[in-house]
């Protein structure tokens, strides 16, 4: 069957199970949009800037576990998309991005809206393709989806010259993808799994250190079973939040630069550290030489190049987190280890952790006059019972959201971890909302971060995506301010964003609902109103601009050298003031 290339593309997307494309048309991809005109079964969501298409595809992918798809034109559209591709690369998010390209005979001629797309995206993608023949379209699309979602997931870019989209070609659809050069290893080595199980049972001060790999492998149930079976406390990275319930007695919550005191102390004093789908990022380890210095390190990861990259690993296990954790559970059960003996072996350790938790819980100083940002997050957590899909931008608000939201399940937390892309929040929330129309999707953003993609309020309105945005508004780039305050001796430079724009007016200009609160007593009613509004809402919360994120490990410092919150009043005291209790 001969079809124009553009039609072949759409047929292939449909066969791959794609139901939504995030995109923005332009000259080189007009044949695709012409084919979309009367093509059944694909929803196209028109964004306002190309990076937003990429982030929305990321949100869709993270929410569903399936591949997110975006489509933009050549040249500037592709260069705009690069940020989203690199973001997906750093956070291992499976997306396939299609870009237009000038006709093949013009490639390299400095044609209108031409850029060396595959050259530019090469280092920002897991793999990329330039289609040079219409009959390759099917096999390339098949491979692109296969590569994106298998092994360590990641973004794949397919560049489509305009003449290929117009010319008719045979639709070739291979049933199976066979690539001799790409065969990820899913099953962990049984001998290594056994070694790891023995080490975990021998340990008196073990910790499970869990990253986003557990979420992308859908291994949260296995993780919980293993943790409960072995009674090993669990700390998660920023990307791993939701893999283990925050309120679980074994939970240490987040570790690293802005991690909890008890998580960082537990990791530092551990004798066996089990890293699962995490990559020893510098924001987690701090000074590498001082990270878990006494621990035997077990590292489970699908990507062999992650192992022993930053830190020498004692027991490497290359494989899919879910399968390896299943193997570990079986191996632990086979070891003749009496649960009573296990408990007594770790009793001192659990007592020590409880003591750390009692000494240094997450806390902040309550104020009756000015809204504390942490309080806003706590109330969002209370009022949604930890059941909302939480998206963030990048900055202080992101860290407070990570610290104070009580996560209950995986695939409900969306944040730019590796790349730290400001402006990530709103477009990603659109992707999440498009994937789950009935869910409550809340974008917790900063006034600096939100501004980087605020034009997408228009998309929310026109595409009926009732995303709720809470702007933690401290009139500036708060995280930069915090660093300048603590590390650069209060030499504040280029951080002020005085109340411009008026977010309520801007929201209304985009057809959204705008709300503003300035006093602590208004917070709960405003959040309730926001949650019950069936339209996109911008809730502008004017908060204390001097508030800092604590604990804080200065970059390059050891995790035990945390700067802690000024010890004023315990979080417990504040709970009385909370109108919903938590």
């Amino acid at each position, binding site marked *: 069957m001969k079809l124009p290339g553009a039609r072949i593309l759409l047929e292939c997307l449909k066969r791959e199970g794609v139901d939504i494309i995030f995109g923005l048309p332009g000259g080189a991809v007009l044949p695709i949009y012409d084919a979309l005109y009367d093509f059944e079964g694909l929803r196209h969501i028109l964004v306002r800037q190309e990076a937003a298409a990429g982030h929305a595809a990321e949100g869709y992918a993270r929410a569903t576990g399936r591949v997110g798809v975006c489509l933009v034109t050549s040249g500037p559209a592709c260069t705009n998309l690069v940020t989203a591709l690199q973001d997906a690369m750093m956070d291992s998010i499976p997306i396939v991005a299609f870009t237009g390209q000038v006709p093949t005979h013009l490639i390299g001629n400095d044609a209108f809206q031409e850029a060396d797309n595959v050259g530019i995206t*090469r280092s920002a993608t897991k*793999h990329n393709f*330039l289609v040079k023949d219409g009959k390759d379209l099917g096999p390339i699309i098949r491979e692109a989806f296969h590569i994106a979602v298998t092994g360590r997931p990641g973004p794949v870019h397919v560049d489509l010259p305009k003449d290929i989209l117009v010319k008719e070609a045979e639709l070739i659809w291979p049933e199976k993808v066979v690539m001799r*050069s790409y065969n990820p290893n899913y099953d962990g080595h049984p001998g290594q799994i056994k070694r790891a199980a023995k080490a975990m049972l021998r340990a008196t001060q073990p910790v499970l250190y869990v990253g986003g790999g557990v979420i992308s492998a859908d291994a949260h149930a296995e993780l919980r079973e293993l943790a409960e079976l072995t009674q090993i406390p669990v700390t998660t990275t920023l990307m791993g939040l939701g893999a283990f319930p925050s309120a679980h007695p074994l939970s240490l919550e987040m570790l690293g630069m802005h991690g909890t005191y008890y998580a960082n102390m537990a990791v530092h004093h551990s004798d066996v550290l089990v890293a699962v789908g995490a990559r020893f990022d510098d924001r987690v380890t701090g000074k*590498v030489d001082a990270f878990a210095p006494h621990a035997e390190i077990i590292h489970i990861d699908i990507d062999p*190049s992650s192992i022993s*990259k930053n830190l020498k690993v004692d027991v490497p296990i290359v494989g899919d987190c879910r399968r390896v954790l299943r193997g570990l559970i079986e191996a632990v059960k086979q070891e003749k280890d009496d649960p009573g003996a296990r408990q007594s072996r770790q009793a001192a350790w659990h007592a020590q952790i409880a003591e750390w938790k009692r000494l240094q819980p997450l806390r902040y100083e309550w104020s009756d006059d000015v809204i504390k940002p942490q309080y806003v997050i706590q109330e969002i957590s209370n009022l949604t019972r930890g059941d909302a899909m939480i998206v963030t931008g990048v900055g202080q608000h992101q860290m407070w959201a990570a610290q104070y939201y009580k996560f209950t399940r995986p695939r409900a937390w969306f944040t730019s971890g590796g790349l730290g892309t400001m402006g990530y929040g709103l477009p990603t929330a659109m992707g999440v909302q498009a994937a789950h129309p009935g869910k409550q999707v809340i974008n917790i953003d900063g006034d600096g971060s939100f501004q980087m993609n605020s034009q997408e309020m228009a998309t929310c309105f026109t595409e009926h995506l009732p995303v709720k945005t809470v702007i933690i508004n401290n009139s500036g780039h708060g995280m930069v301010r915090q660093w300048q305050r603590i590390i650069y001796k209060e030499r504040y430079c280029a951080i002020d964003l005085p109340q411009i724009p008026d977010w309520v007016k801007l929201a209304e200009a985009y057809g959204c609902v705008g709300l503003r609160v300035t006093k602590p007593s208004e917070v709960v009613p405003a959040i309730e109103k926001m949650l019950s509004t069936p339209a996109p809402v911008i809730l502008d919360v004017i908060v204390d601009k001097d508030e800092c994120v604590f604990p804080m490990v200065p970059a390059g410092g050891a995790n035990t050298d945390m700067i802690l919150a000024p010890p004023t009043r315990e979080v417990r005291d504040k709970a009385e003031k909370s109108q919903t209790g938590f």
Partner: protein
Amino acid sequence: MSGNGSEPRKHTISVLVENKFGVLSRVAGLFSARGYNIESLSVGETLDPSVSRMTIVVTGDEFVIEQVTKQLHKLIDVIKVNDLTDDSHVERELVLIRVNAEPQHRAEIQRTADIFRARVVDVTPVSFVLEATGDEGKIEALLELLRPIGVQEVVRTGKIAIGRGPKTRVKRAPEKRRVSDDPRVVGFAD
């Protein structure tokens, strides 16, 4: 993880890749993105025309080389990565040298070339072009002797390498041979 572990040394890494456009820039990009310096790189087709072999020489300690190997393997178009350095292997490089050849030096150049089994492949009234093959040590020794006479230009192919013995990197031909009868597995002496 840099600076710890073993001393840096030269490694010869043999990489089988899909013979597709863009593969070379993927490999080169991998090195440049991480600040690793490629000392030499040569590419050519293998017995299977859909597969190319790259021979890459890179200097690094064991952690750098481990990362290089893993990162190479991570590239989708890379089929196989082999660090030949500590395996038994033969390596060669081809070099073309244009050297001053005034009448009073011609005989000396000729003699030197003979000793190194190099050949004169071009002659002008004032210069010779020599062609020589060998491992790095031999090429360096030849250049050392020619330098006082006046080397005008040197062009080197970069190192290529092959494992010794019956072990082959591409799928072996289906017919069975007894190793001892196979003339290709003996006689590698220079």
